[in-house]
């Protein structure tokens, strides 16, 4: 009570100051704060800039891969060449190889060109045929063998244009570069331009890029992501089905039930370390355990899924434990206080509160697994696969590719058209990642009780 009598302002002899003007100390503090804000904004700006550059580069390189140049004309399916015996038996017709089909396509093309008044006399037949994709003959043969009754008719077909011709319309190939390129001649480009003018050729959206299988290095125009997307999807299913129950059960046990002793400490440290192990190590492990020891087939989504599960588990366990930890202990006490068992308190109260965090962690883990390449290279997922895997569950054991591996493979190929396709594949991968994150946000919203 004694200091009540002290006169304010006289203590320590300090002179009375106005709060209307900042003193030196306050000014220094404000300056420091302003500086820090600038650092922060610079850091954020750097990040945003990097992201924008990345997106621009990928989109500008890759968007064109979703469009493809197609050629449409009538092909006479002459019965003498395709079905010499004349009984429309697919088994006998399959003796005719793609070399039997190529002349038919060339004839059809020539006829279509002359009908439109495009003169191609100075262009050699081989160059003319090369305007069409090398995949055309095989596609036509598949179609005819599947529908033998069409032999003898003349049908309109749509073929992919050769990758170089396609590149011409996308700006990748020019008359000058064609002079130096042994794979394309300026004459071909001139014919192609005339075909576009005559409505024989057009560039439009190409579903084949998303649904079709991979193609060899000589026919980039027909390479698609279908097998890779399916393979990645199968692997994600394996990862989800395995990591969610195992990860959540392990986290709940470690967080809520396990005694705190040396042994559990050791496990805890090792889980954190495991999350930092380079992913290629998991690939070697998968090769040794799942393929060499357990005898599972190479390049199969099941093996990829198992390896990615091993890689993702630590991430999911860490995320799940963090979200379990963030549930206030008073909730557990409240449940125990009314006589709930440990198990009831966890499953009725703690887990629902932790669910949004667990889901987010799981989806982030899945997204990480979706983009992982290195371990898949080691278990043979780099194989060139054109066959779609079967439906589930047998499909898990069929050879398949994966999206990031497909990107890697395409960047290895020499034809420049594959650069565009690799960027396109990256766009597809990014779209999937964005979709997964959107699902994470939606699930969070759905499960989060705002009270």
């Amino acid at each position: 009570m004694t200091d009540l009598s002290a006169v304010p302002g006289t203590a320590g002899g300090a002179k009375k100051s106005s709060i209307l003007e900042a003193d030196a100390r306050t000014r220094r503090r404000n300056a420091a704060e302003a500086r820090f804000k600038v650092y922060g904004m610079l850091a954020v700006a750097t990040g945003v800039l990097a992201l924008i550059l990345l997106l621009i580069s990928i989109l500008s390189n890759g968007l064109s891969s979703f469009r493809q140049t197609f050629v449409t004309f009538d092909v006479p399916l002459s019965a003498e060449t395709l079905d010499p015996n004349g009984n429309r038996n697919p088994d006998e017709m399959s003796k005719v190889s793609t070399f039997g089909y190529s002349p038919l396509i060339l004839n059809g093309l020539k006829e279509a060109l002359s009908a439109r008044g495009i003169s191609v006399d100075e262009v050699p037949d081989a160059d003319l045929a090369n305007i069409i994709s090398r995949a055309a003959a095989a596609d036509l043969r598949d179609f005819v063998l599947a529908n033998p009754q069409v032999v003898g008719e003349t049908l309109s077909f749509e073929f992919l244009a050769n990758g170089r011709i396609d590149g011409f319309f996308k700006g990748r190939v020019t008359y000058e570069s064609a002079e130096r390129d042994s794979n394309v001649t300026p004459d071909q480009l001139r014919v192609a331009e005339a075909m576009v003018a005559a409505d024989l050729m057009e560039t439009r959206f190409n579903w084949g890029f998303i649904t079709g299988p991979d193609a060899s290095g000589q026919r980039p125009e027909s390479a698609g992501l279908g097998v890779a997307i399916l393979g990645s999807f199968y692997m994600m299913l394996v990862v989800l089905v395995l990591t969610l129950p195992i990860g959540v059960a392990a986290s709940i046990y470690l967080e809520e039930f396990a005694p705190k002793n040396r042994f559990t400490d050791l496990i805890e440290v090792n889980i954190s370390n495991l999350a930092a192990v380079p992913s290629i190590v998991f690939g070697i492990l998968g090769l040794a355990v799942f393929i060499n020891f357990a005898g599972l087939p190479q390049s199969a989504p099941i093996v990829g899924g198992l390896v990615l599960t091993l890689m993702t588990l630590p991430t999911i366990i860490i995320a799940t434990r963090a979200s379990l930890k963030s549930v206030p202990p008073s909730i557990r006490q409240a449940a125990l206080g009314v006589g709930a068992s440990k198990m009831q308190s966890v499953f009725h109260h703690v887990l629902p509160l932790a669910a949004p965090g667990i889901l987010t962690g799981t989806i982030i883990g899945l997204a990480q697994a979706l983009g992982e390449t290195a371990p898949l290279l080691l278990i043979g997922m780099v194989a060139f696969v054109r066959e779609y895997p079967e439906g589930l569950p047998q499909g898990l054991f069929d050879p398949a590719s994966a999206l990031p591996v497909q990107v890697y493979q395409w960047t290895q190929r020499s034809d420049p058209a594959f650069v565009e396709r690799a960027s396109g594949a990256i766009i597809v991968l990014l779209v999937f990642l964005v979709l997964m994150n959107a699902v994470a946000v939606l699930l969070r919203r759905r499960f989060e009780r705002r009270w």
Partner: protein
Amino acid sequence: MNDMRLTERNVTSSEIKISARQVDVFYGDTHAIKKVDVAIPDKTVTAFIGPSGCGKSTFLRCLNRMNDTIDGCRVTGDILLDGEDIYDKRVDPVQLRAKVGMVFQKPNPFPKSIYDNVAYGPRIHGLARGKQELDEIVEKSLRRAAIWDEVKDRLQAPGTGLSGGQQQRLCIARAVATSPEVLLMDEPCSALDPIATAQVEELIDELRERFSVVIVTHSMQQAARVSQKTAFFHLGELVEFGDTGQIFTTPKDPRTESYITGRIG
């Protein structure tokens, strides 16, 4: 302390509900409770008073084995509930806690609806045979916790959306919903306004007809108002235990006297 009104202390039962013998509690190396002997009678309100950190909450938690859930906490000695050792190996703490309910210092409603908060205990213990019976239990419990009128129109609203005092009364309703035999309350009124406090105190007095109530409080007036027995703790020791009237008027121990008159604490 002259505004203290000492109500008549008719201890309705002389039967011992809980008896503790030579109880020691350690948190790791910290010796939090030292050789405590106490006999808590049935159908009585027993108040634990003492300065902060003296071990009131710790000892209270021993009575329903909530200390089991704290890492590094060790309890030795015997605590008997109706003559049975609650620390016996055969005792399931879950079953014990259904008999010995608890209200915590900080209100901790579940992040669920008001109705579900109260209905949770009866549900997991199978106390209600149907929806109607459950509704009745919920209403009765909320009425006894003096909160029914405030929440009867919004039973499906979240329990965490109530004010601090309302939350605490909700927690009391949740605790009485399971019809425990003993109700432990750790400073149940520390977040309540005087009116709600009076209501809770009334409730405590009412609960005494059926249960044995143990209440930790920092308010000596409250101890004097609601309790029939008072235990004074100091530095982990039970200094004095006796009828509330006697503790507040003629304490035997000088430490009790100085605490009650406001010299330590």
